[in-house]
C-alpha cells in the first residue's frame, strides 16, 4: 500500500529508533570491518586479491555452500512435513508438532551440539547400539565430518524453516483442495499440483532463511566438524583470533556479507516480506 507523502514520513519516523539501532549495532561495526579489509596489513585491495587465489579459502567457501545447500534441502523438506501436521493435523497432532517445534528453542545451541556428539561419536549411543545388535563391527564415522555438521545444523534450523511455511499453509483456502479432489484429482496429485505450488512463497522464504543462516554457522560446525569440516565462519574466527591475519579475515567477512545481501535482494524480488512472517 502506498500512502501519501506525509503517511510515508510518519512511517519513517516510527521506524527511526529501530533504524538507528541497526546503524549503531550493525552498519557502523561493519564499516570498521570493511576498513580493516582494505588497510591491514597494508592499504589496498591486496587481501581481496589473495582471496581470489587462496586455495584453502576457496575450498572452505565451496564446502560452506555445499553444506548450506544440503542443510537447506533437508531442513525445508522436514519442516514442510512438520508444518503440515502443525497446521492441518488433528488437535492432538497439532499440540505434539507445536511442542517439537518450540522445545529446541529452549535448549542452547551448544548443549544441542554436544548432545549430537554424545549420540553420534564412535562410542556414542548410536554406534554402541548398532554394534551391540551386531549390525556393524566397526563404528560408523558419524561425527567430526560433514555428516555430523549437516545433522547438527539441520536439527537447529528446522524450527526456523517452519514459520514461513506455516504462514503460507494457513492462508491457503481449504476449498481449493476440495475443488481439486472434486474435479477428480487424487490426494497425491492434489498435494503436488495444488498444495505445493500454492505454498511456494513459503518454501522460498523458508529456504532463504535456512540457507543464509547456515552460511554463517559457527558453533555447530566447530563442535561437530571437529576441525576437519571447517566452514566459513570458523575460518574467519581462525584468521582473526589465531593467525592473526585480520585483513584476510575481514575481507572474507565482507565477501560473505555481500553474498548474503545479494541473496536477500533476490529473495525480496520474488516474495514480499509479509509472506515470510
Amino acid at each position, binding site marked *: 500500500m502506498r500512502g501519501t507523502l506525509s503517511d510515508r514520513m510518519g512511517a519513517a519516523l516510527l521506524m527511526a529508533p529501530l533504524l538507528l539501532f541497526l546503524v549503531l549495532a550493525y552498519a557502523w561495526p561493519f564499516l570498521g570491518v570493511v576498513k580493516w579489509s582494505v588497510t591491514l596489513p597494508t592499504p589496498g585491495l591486496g587481501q581481496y586479491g589473495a582471496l581470489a587465489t587462496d586455495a584453502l579459502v576457496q575450498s572452505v567457501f565451496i564446502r560452506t555452500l555445499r553444506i548450506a545447500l544440503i542443510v537447506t534441502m533437508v531442513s525445508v523438506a522436514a519442516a514442510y512435513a512438520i508444518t503440515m501436521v502443525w497446521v492441518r493435523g488433528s488437535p492432538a497432532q497439532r499440540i505434539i508438532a507445536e511442542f517439537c517445534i518450540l522445545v529446541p528453542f529452549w535448549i542452547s545451541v551448544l548443549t544441542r551440539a554436544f548432545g549430537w556428539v554424545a549420540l553420534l561419536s564412535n562410542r556414542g549411543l548410536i554406534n554402541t547400539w548398532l554394534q551391540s545388535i551386531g549390525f556393524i563391527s566397526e563404528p560408523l564415522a558419524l561425527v567430526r565430518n560433514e555428516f555430523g555438521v549437516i545433522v547438527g545444523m539441520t536439527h537447529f534450523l528446522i524450527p526456523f524453516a517452519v514459520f514461513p511455511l506455516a504462514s503460507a499453509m494457513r492462508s491457503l483456502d481449504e476449498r*481449493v483442495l476440495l475443488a481439486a479432489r472434486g474435479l*477428480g484429482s487424487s490426494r497425491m496429485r492434489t498435494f503436488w499440483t495444488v498444495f505445493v505450488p500454492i505454498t511456494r512463497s513459503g518454501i522460498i522464504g523458508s529456504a532463504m532463511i535456512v540457507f543464509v543462516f547456515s552460511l554463517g554457522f559457527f558453533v555447530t560446525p566447530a563442535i561437530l566438524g571437529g576441525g576437519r569440516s571447517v566452514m566459513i565462519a570458523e575460518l574467519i574466527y581462525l584468521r582473526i583470533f589465531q593467525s592473526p591475519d585480520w585483513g584476510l579475515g575481514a575481507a572474507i567477512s565482507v565477501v560473505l556479507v555481500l553474498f548474503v545481501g545479494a541473496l536477500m535482494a533476490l529473495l525480496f524480488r520474488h516474495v514480499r516480506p509479509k509472506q515470510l512472517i
Partner: protein
Amino acid sequence: MQQPGRAAEIKAIGIGKSFGSFRALDDLTLNIGRGEFLTLLGPSGSGKTTFLMILAGFVQPTVGKLFSDGVDITERPAEQRAAGMVFQGYALFPHMSVEANIAFPLKVRKKSAAEIKRRVAEMIERVGLKGHETKLPAQLSGGQQQRVALARALVFEPGVLLLDEPFSALDKSLRGQMQAEMKRLHQETGTTFVFVTHDQSEALALSSRVAIFNHGKLLQVGAPDEVYDRPANRFVAEFLGEINMLPLKGVKRADDGATALCEDRAITLRGNAEAVNGNAILAIRPEHMSIAREAAAGENGIAATAVGSTYLGAATKLDLTTRQGAKVTVSVPNEVAAAALIKGNSVWLTWPAEKGFLLPDGG
C-alpha cells in the same frame, strides 16, 4: 458420476448426518431426475449445504444410501465421483492461469494435449472468457472468476453439476446476468444441476424443482409455482415470500375446496384438497389480494384500514389492519394505494377463491 456427457439420476435414501450431537441432516429421501435443475433452498444451518457436500463426496453421511444411476456411491470418494462443483468463493487455483484452471480436470483424466486444447478453447468461448486465457484468477473480476469456476466444473462433462451459493459474492445486476447464463448452460449441456441458495427469488427463477430445508429436514419438494402457491406448511409459505395469514373459523370441506368464516364473513376456497375441518389459517400472497370499495355478494373479502405504505416504483406495498386487528400487506397499483391511504378510509380486501390456501391452525 458416470460416463461423461450423460446427465446423472441421483437417489438419496434416508440420508442423515450428525456432527456430535448436532443433527445437520435428518432422514432425507429425495430423487433428483436426469437433467433437472434442482435448487436446495433454506436458511443457513438448514442442512442444504451438508447435503450438497454429501452429494460431492466431501462429507460422509452417518446413515442412508446414495445412488447414482442405480449404483450405490455412498462410500465412493470425491475424486472418483467427479461431480462438477462450483464453490462459494469459486475456489479457483490461484497459481494457475484461466486456461490451466479449466484444463485441470482434463489433465487429471489424462486426455491428449490436442483434446485438452480443443475442449478448453470451446469452454472458454462458451462462457465468454475469450482474451483472458493467460490471466491469473486474481486479475479477474468476480463475474469472470465465476465463469472460470463454471467452465472448470463443466469441461469434463460431469453427470451432475453441484453449485454452492455461487452468486452470493456478486452484485445484483451481475447476479441476474449470471443466473441467465447458468440457465443457458443448463439447457445447452443437459446436465443435472443441483444448486444451493438461501435466496428464494433465485430459487424460483432458476429451478425446475425446489427442495426447501429447515433444521436439517426436507420440508417440501416441487416445481416453483407449486411450492409458492401451495406450500406444505407455514415455514415454506413464509420462506418463499411475503404472505398474509388470517385466522379462519368453521372450516368445512366442500366440492373442490372449502367454506369458512373469516372475521365473521363467509368465504370460499377452491382447489385445496387437504382442507382441515374446524379452525385453520388462511394464507394469501400480497400480490393476490386487491383493494376495493365494496365486496360483492359471494366474493371473498374483509374490511380493513390502510395504516402505511412503501413505494416500490412499479407498485406500492400497502399495510392494512383488519377490523379484528390482523395485519395484512398487499401489493397494489400506486394510485390505488394513494386512494386507500386517505385517512380513516375503510376499504375492502378481496381475493379470488383459488388463491387462498389453508394451513393448519398454529402450524
